[in-house]
């Protein structure tokens, strides 16, 4: 007998995980889907407005406008811009923290593991400085200076970061962003009660937020982290629930800010700390990856072989990871840390500590990271985790699944490591594309969700369809977590690819789905795309490159999506982003965007037809490039 709250869990593309979760005695998001299966139609269409006390107003046949006169078009646009602003704010928070961390690390002459990344940034930022710490501090200062500009002063690094044809187009459209934090502010103000009512103006604003989100929140966060934490390098690594080793004190990390763990992860493998672990009967400490920060650690795993045991799963696997009983503490610093883990932590006596005050969990200890106190904070954390370990191990039943996941997921792919792999030039890849051995590239990015068929169902099915059509898939975000756990990032997955892509993969010993890691690495995909476009001498929209966020989940994903559209790329989403109640929104996103940026939104929750649409776009672009 199963003692969970509701017996029916949602489907998962990860069959083993589905079985594991359906047998759990704790309530998870997979269980809660059934209770939330009836959705609000007004919410789905984005035609509910709660901006004033005359509301909430909804668009109905008898009420075609809100009390204030707002049309469905206005409501949808306001709701959407609000979401994009919030999503942008999240990423800007991350890059701000990361830049501050780099600044303080550099100022305190801390270790900078990524020399290549440092040199690259110095070159982009046009900094001529021999001392690496001074150089790094200047880089951080330049980033922070841009972030803190008012919205009426354009950020200076945009032109340095962006591909020139894109920059020129953005300038023409008037969507070059001012200070990234202020742009979030403007987006929120615009969408307040009875301010902006012009949907087109608001969608252009979304593109502007997309640019600041993408270039700063994504791309720069990666590069700044690389400077501090080391560049990714390609390797095979274990993934899934199997990575949890019960002999160790296990800390699950969730969030998006790898640098917050920078000091701690080194400290955990120092002798005195290992001795502390041994004193309570463990072999030492291990970090278990979960969500994007786990992906980031996996990406740079080459530098953290000892402390990092591997990535266990994405956001909607986090409850299952905890339910193994072998996790002794959760350290979280940002989303996607589900509130659903809280009762599980309570029940299984798992210590929760939050390291960033924007993401305090209700029953967690709050310990905002302070750079100057990182030594003492780390010691306090270590002691708290040991205490938790002692209190729970032997008391809490373990429920391991050593069979889940695999040992040969190819990880560590980045714009740098991939280029090195290809011999320091993009030419081999371009040649394969020109010859048609690789028909095109699909960036399958974004989140994991439980909709569109279930946990990762659409993502996995779409990727299978795409690789079968000889389209190389690059993944970044929680989508990677699902793809790796089902084996699509293992070299053996080449057998699922179309004959041409399969041959390429087998000759190189790589899977047809390349793992770029966290959602932040969407910025790395942009770097790859830009470098490819540069090498070929075309603009981004001309590349046989498509984006898909099949199971986009949250506001951050919408800001990412706005970046994709600003880049002029076709963007597929499995489910509409709550805009279909507005004819203007549908027109702008699916048609007019082609003339604005070259981008286009495609909504389709069917893997097969979505893949066909994306394939057709790639074919069309190939034809236009005469290849």
């Amino acid at each position: 007998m199963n003692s969970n709250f509701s017996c029916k869990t949602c489907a998962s593309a990860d069959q083993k995980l589905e079985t594991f979760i359906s047998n759990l005695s704790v309530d998870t998001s997979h269980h809660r889907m059934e209770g939330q299966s009836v959705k609000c139609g007004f919410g789905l269409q984005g035609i509910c407005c709660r901006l004033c006390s005359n509301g909430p107003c909804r668009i109905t046949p008898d009420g075609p406008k809100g009390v204030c006169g707002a049309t469905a078009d206005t409501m949808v646009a306001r709701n959407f811009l609000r979401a994009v602003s919030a999503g942008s704010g999240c990423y800007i928070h991350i890059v701000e923290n990361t830049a501050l961390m780099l600044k303080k690390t550099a100022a305190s002459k801390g270790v900078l593991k990524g020399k290549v990344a440092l040199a690259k940034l110095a070159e982009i930022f046009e900094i001529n400085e021999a001392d690496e710490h001074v150089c790094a501090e200047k880089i951080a200062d330049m980033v922070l200076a841009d972030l803190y500009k008012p919205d009426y002063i354009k950020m200076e690094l945009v032109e340095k970061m962006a591909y020139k044809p894109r920059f020129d187009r953005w300038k023409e459209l008037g969507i070059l962003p001012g200070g990234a934090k202020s742009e979030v502010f403007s987006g929120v103000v615009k969408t307040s009660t009875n301010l902006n009512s012009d949907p087109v103006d608001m969608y252009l604003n979304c593109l502007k937020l997309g640019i600041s989100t993408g270039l700063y929140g994504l791309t720069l966060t990666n590069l700044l982290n690389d400077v501090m934490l080391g560049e990714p390098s390609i390797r095979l690594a274990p993934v899934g629930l199997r990575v949890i080793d019960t002999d160790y004190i296990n800390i699950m990390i969730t969030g998006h800010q790898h640098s917050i763990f920078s000091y701690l992860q080194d400290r955990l493998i120092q002798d005195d700390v290992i001795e502390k672990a041994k004193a309570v009967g463990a072999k030492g400490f291990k970090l278990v990856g979960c969500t994007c920060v786990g992906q980031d650690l996996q990406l740079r795993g080459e530098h953290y072989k000892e402390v990092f045991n591997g990535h266990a799963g994405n956001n909607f696997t986090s409850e299952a990871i905890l339910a193994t009983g072998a996790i002794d503490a959760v350290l979280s610093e940002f989303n996607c840390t589900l509130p659903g883990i809280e009762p599980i932590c309570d029940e299984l006596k798992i210590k929760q500590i939050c390291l960033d005050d924007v993401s305090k969990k209700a029953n967690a200890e709050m310990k905002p990271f302070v750079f100057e106190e990182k030594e003492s904070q780390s010691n306090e954390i270590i002691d708290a985790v040991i205490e938790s370990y002692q209190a729970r191990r032997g008391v809490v039943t373990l429920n391991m699944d050593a069979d889940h996941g695999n040992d040969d997921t190819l990880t560590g792919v980045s714009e740098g490591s991939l280029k090195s792999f290809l011999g320091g030039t993009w030419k081999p890849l371009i040649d394969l594309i020109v010859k048609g051995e690789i028909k095109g590239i699909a960036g399958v990015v974004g989140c994991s969700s439980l909709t569109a068929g279930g946990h990762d169902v659409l993502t996995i099915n779409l990727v299978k369809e795409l690789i079968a059509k000889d389209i190389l898939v690059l993944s970044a975000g929680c989508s990677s977590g699902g793809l790796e756990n089902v084996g699509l990032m293992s070299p053996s997955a080449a057998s699922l690819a179309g004959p041409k892509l399969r041959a390429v993969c087998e000759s190189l010993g790589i899977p047809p789905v390349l793992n770029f890691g966290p959602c932040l690495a969407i910025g790395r995909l942009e770097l790859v795309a830009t470098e490819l476009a540069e090498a070929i001498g075309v603009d981004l929209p001309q590349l046989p490159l498509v984006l898909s966020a099949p199971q986009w989940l949250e506001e951050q994903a919408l800001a990412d999506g706005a970046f994709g559209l600003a880049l002029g790329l076709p963007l597929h989403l499995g489910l509409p982003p709550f805009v279909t109640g507005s004819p203007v929104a549908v027109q702008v996103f699916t048609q007019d965007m082609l003339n604005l940026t070259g981008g286009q939104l495609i909504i389709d929750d069917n893997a097969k037809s979505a893949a066909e649409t994306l394939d057709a776009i790639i074919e069309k672009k190939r034809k236009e490039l005469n290849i």
Partner: protein
Amino acid sequence: MKRIIIDREKCDGCLNCNIACISAHEEGSNFYTVNMQSPEAETRNFIKFDAQKGYLPIFCRHCDEPECVLSCMSGALEKDPLTGHVQYDESKCAACYMCVMNCPYGVLKPDKQTRTKVIKCDFCEDKPDGPSCVKACPKKAIEVKEVSL
């Protein structure tokens, strides 16, 4: 016969039943795509609100003694002897609206665009899962139950 049984205490006035109804009668639409602004968008169920009583879901009862059928002078409204549901044949309807006048519960209404037909619950007879409104109710304030005639 099957009737939609209402537990009005559970109703939150979310109007999902309205959307479901409109979508069920817009060929090929779903909750994302149903056009709420279409001139043809008509709901067959209604949620009224009263400060004292709260939300009052008004759904066609497919009455045991249907006044609408008795008042129909074209034969468009008939009570199906097997299902007990009041069926409406638009092609027969003369749009006299005697049924609108005679429904004591104010469920029936003329179509707003052409005033050539009646908008009436068909119990989603063509849908294998039964009434769309019931499926769409997040609170289970409406449920299909068997009642004896």
